[in-house]
């Protein structure tokens, strides 16, 4: 490191300052003495901050697409009897005489789920903030391998393009649900959406997984090896703990999905029978014997379940940080917070079959998975109580980021609690695959992870772009979204309890499900409004990049290292030496201290009056 420091030009703070080419790693050695071109600076950048922004903006694009799809299928569900001629010019053959094609409806649901879970909340959320914050908060000049990091984005990008293309092919995109259970997904003759669309889905996911692995290896290596002096694991901000554990989850779980996808490709194209047996379809008995579609579900959920924590743990980390900063209090129970993250990570690997209680598995196995599932409620409860205790007797500043963090806690509680119903196998008999499930996971992982994402963007926007997002628009965005989410997903619980099945194109054929016509309209209206409310954010985002209020170096009076860089950190993050770390990340409102925050890089020798015996414990 020391060798690098000497030839670094000083970077002035402020937006718009061009970065000098800084060598911080061997791979960029060649551009040491000349300005980076547009391509290497913005497109094929190896700088973790640029890559983070690439992930963020790609994720936002996908969120808009995913949201548009959900508005489309909500339209159908709200008014299954109506016709939508006006959509004809947009949807072409997917709408006949104003009626949405049922197959296309399933494709919409499938794409919406896939996009939201993988492209928005995994790549867009975790990819953005792991990339942006890990080097900045641990005091590193960049990721361990900038080149692999760049590849990670580009694999994601290519995977994105392929998924996007699948929306336009003749037979339509994949239509077997985001869980792509075989045999539906394995038999190209089963439905149009299991033809070319499914092939593209599988290829896209394979590339996506490569991207995840490249990113994950980098995050883990960086956290382990590149922490600045004094940054022990027990002084890491909770965000980093969350990103670190998330990366480990991804690294262990994604390869299992990869193998499942691979076996599925074999079944589809090369006549193997991993997931197929005893099938008569499209007028023909197939030769496959001896496989089991249930095996796929085990493999899928071995990723699929940790995946929901891959989505939500980064949000938990960021929310913890934002709650502490804006309550001007240490996060309550720092160690318990880490412990519960570890507990959740471990448990997330042993509960996958709670998605399969009614697939005919051995009831004893069901009991075991019910037990393990419900244990997860304990670390989750600990986290919730700790967040509440962090607010208690705080001096709370309601920034937009703070509002979204409080909203996160609310949604996490609401969604987490209904999980206790679903984790109970005896009750899941009735609830499985109904809208109760849809409502549950939208609250606990869909919406709350989105709230974490928003909180993170509002909070770190000044560090990313040197300007603030507009707080008034932030307030409007928060309230519309918060109300919207509850208005959409609370009633969904209600129809779910009544048994309304998910992935239904229409409910008019069943007496049992037809009683909720008005409620379904209500949900649809709320959903479409909530979706449009997001454009307040989109506008705010792009407007503020150029016109937002200018930020200072540490606008929130935070303690963590990223706020010790110039307003917009250049390549290499710190112009001079990387600061050393002396204390834990949450010294807010320390008794005896002059200010209500003491950054991590301030040595104890400078804060004699506020050094408590407690510090000894945190070592």
């Amino acid at each position, binding site marked *: 490191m020391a060798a690098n420091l000497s030839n670094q030009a000083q970077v002035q703070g402020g937006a718009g300052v061009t970065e000098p080419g800084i060598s911080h790693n061997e791979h960029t050695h060649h551009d040491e003495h000349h300005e980076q071109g547009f391509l290497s600076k913005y497109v094929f950048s190896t700088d973790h901050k640029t890559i983070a922004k690439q992930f963020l903006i790609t994720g936002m694009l996908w969120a808009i697409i995913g949201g548009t799809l959900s508005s489309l299928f909500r339209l159908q569900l709200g008014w299954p009897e109506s016709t939508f001629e006006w959509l004809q010019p947009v949807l072409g053959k997917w709408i006949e005489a104003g009626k949405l094609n049922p197959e296309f409806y399933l494709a919409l649901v499938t794409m919406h789920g896939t996009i939201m879970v993988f492209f928005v909340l995994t790549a867009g959320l975790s990819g953005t903030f792991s990339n942006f914050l890990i080097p900045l908060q641990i005091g590193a000049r960049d990721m361990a391998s900038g080149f692999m990091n760049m590849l990670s984005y580009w694999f994601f990008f290519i995977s994105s393009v392929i998924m996007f293309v699948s929306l336009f092919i003749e037979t339509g995109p994949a239509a077997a649900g985001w869980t792509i*259970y075989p045999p*539906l997904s394995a038999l190209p003759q089963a*439905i149009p959406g299991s033809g070319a669309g499914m092939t593209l889905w599988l290829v896209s996911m394979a590339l996506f997984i490569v991207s995840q692995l490249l990113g994950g290896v980098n995050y883990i290596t960086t956290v382990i090896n590149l922490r600045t002096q004094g940054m022990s694991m027990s002084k890491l901000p909770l965000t980093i703990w969350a990103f670190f554990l998330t990366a480990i989850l991804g690294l262990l779980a994604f390869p299992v999905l990869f193998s499942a996808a691979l076996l599925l490709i074999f079944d589809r194209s090369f006549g193997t029978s991993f997931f*197929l047996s*005893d*099938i*008569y*379809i499209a007028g023909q008995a197939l030769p496959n014997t001896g*496989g*089991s579609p*249930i095996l796929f579900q085990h493999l899928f959920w071995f990723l699929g379940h940790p995946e929901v924590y891959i989505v939500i743990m980064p949000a938990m980390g960021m929310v913890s940080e934002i709650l502490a900063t804006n309550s*001007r*209090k*240490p996060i309550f*129970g*720092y*160690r*318990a917070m880490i412990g519960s993250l570890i507990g959740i990570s471990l448990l997330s690997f042993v509960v996958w079959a709670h998605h399969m209680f*009614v697939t*005919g598995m051995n*009831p004893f196995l*069901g*009991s075991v998975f*019910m037990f393990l599932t*419900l244990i997860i409620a*304990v670390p989750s*409860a*600990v986290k919730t109580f700790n967040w*509440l205790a962090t*607010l*208690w*007797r*705080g*001096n*709370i500043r*309601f920034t937009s980021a703070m509002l979204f963090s*409080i909203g996160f806690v609310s949604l996490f*509680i*609401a969604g987490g609690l209904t999980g*206790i*119903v679903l984790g*109970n*196998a*005896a009750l899941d*008999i*009735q609830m499985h*695959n109904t809208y109760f499930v849809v409502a549950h996971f939208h609250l606990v992982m869909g919406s709350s992870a989105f709230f974490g994402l928003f909180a993170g963007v509002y909070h770190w926007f000044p560090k990313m772009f040197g300007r603030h997002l507009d707080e008034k628009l932030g307030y409007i965005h928060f309230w519309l979204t918060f109300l919207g989410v509850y208005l959409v997903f609370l009633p969904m619980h*209600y129809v779910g*309890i*009544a*048994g309304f099945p998910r*992935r*239904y*194109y*229409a*409910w008019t*054929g069943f*007496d*049992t499900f037809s009683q909720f016509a008005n409620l379904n309209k209500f949900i649809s209206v709320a959903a479409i409004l909530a979706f449009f409310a997001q454009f307040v954010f989109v506008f705010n985002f792009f407007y503020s990049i150029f016109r937002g209020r200018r930020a200072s170096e540490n606008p929130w009076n935070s303690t963590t290292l990223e706020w010790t860089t110039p307003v917009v950190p250049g390549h290499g993050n710190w112009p001079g030496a990387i600061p050393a770390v002396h204390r834990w990340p949450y010294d807010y409102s320390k*008794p005896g201290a002059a200010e209500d925050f003491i950054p991590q890089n301030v040595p104890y020798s400078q804060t004699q009056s506020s050094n408590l015996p407690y510090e000894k414990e945190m070592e």
Partner: protein
Amino acid sequence: MNPPIASVHGHATERMFWTTMIILGIVFALTHILLFVYSYKYQHKEGRRAFFFPHNNKIEIIWTLIPAIVMAGLVFAGWKEWSRIMGPAPKDAVVLEVMGKQFNWLVRYPGRDQKLGVVNYRLIDATNEFGFDLSDQSGLDDFVAPEIHVPKGHPVLLRIRSRDVLHAVYMPHFRVQMYAVPGMPTKFWFTPTKTTDEMRAQTGNPKFNYELACNQICGRGHFAMKLNIVVDEPDDYVAWFSQQKSFSEQNPDILASFKQKTNKLASKAAAIPAAAVVPAANASL
């Protein structure tokens, strides 16, 4: 809200559901009150300093243990009920088989011998939708039905299979749900408690019918894979059952083709009297 319950175990799960919901409701209310009260009460004030309160082992242990104990209670109750629901069906249960296909349900009863005959997916065609293998004697009296009939107050064992993709048998009123998996027959047993007529009276809906829905995405017609279920008084059920004609009887040409294949078995088949099929379940009703 929940569709009216019409099965024995449904009453137990219903109680458990609402007990759970009440506990969850209390937790939701308490945490939300704290969340909003704290947010309101501790708003930023000039000159005030937040309370430095980084941890407290005692309360952390307390609020780890309490959820653990509550969860232990819920797990135990759930486990007991689940084991009972999933336990083996009573020996005298009425047996029937449901087979999912894109996009319909097929129903088969074992006939008076109470034994479902062998079926083979390779034998499926437009008439032999189940793939009856009529060289198996116990299949000769099996009959297929356009809807499900079950007797009230008697355990019913549902055998479930699929011939193409995954489907799921979902009967919300009976709190029954089980996947239909190609290559892996599954089952579920339950005891209906109200006849269709009783339910019509109770709901005030003269057109009420129990419905069986497909609850696992299976393609275009997934949302319309519906089958009616009729819960009869036991006597009516027996009457209905004895009127049904066996598949082999209705499809003599298929039977004949099997006859040609195996003369020996066919002679056995011929020995079975065609008429007056009495359901075995009758004995125990």
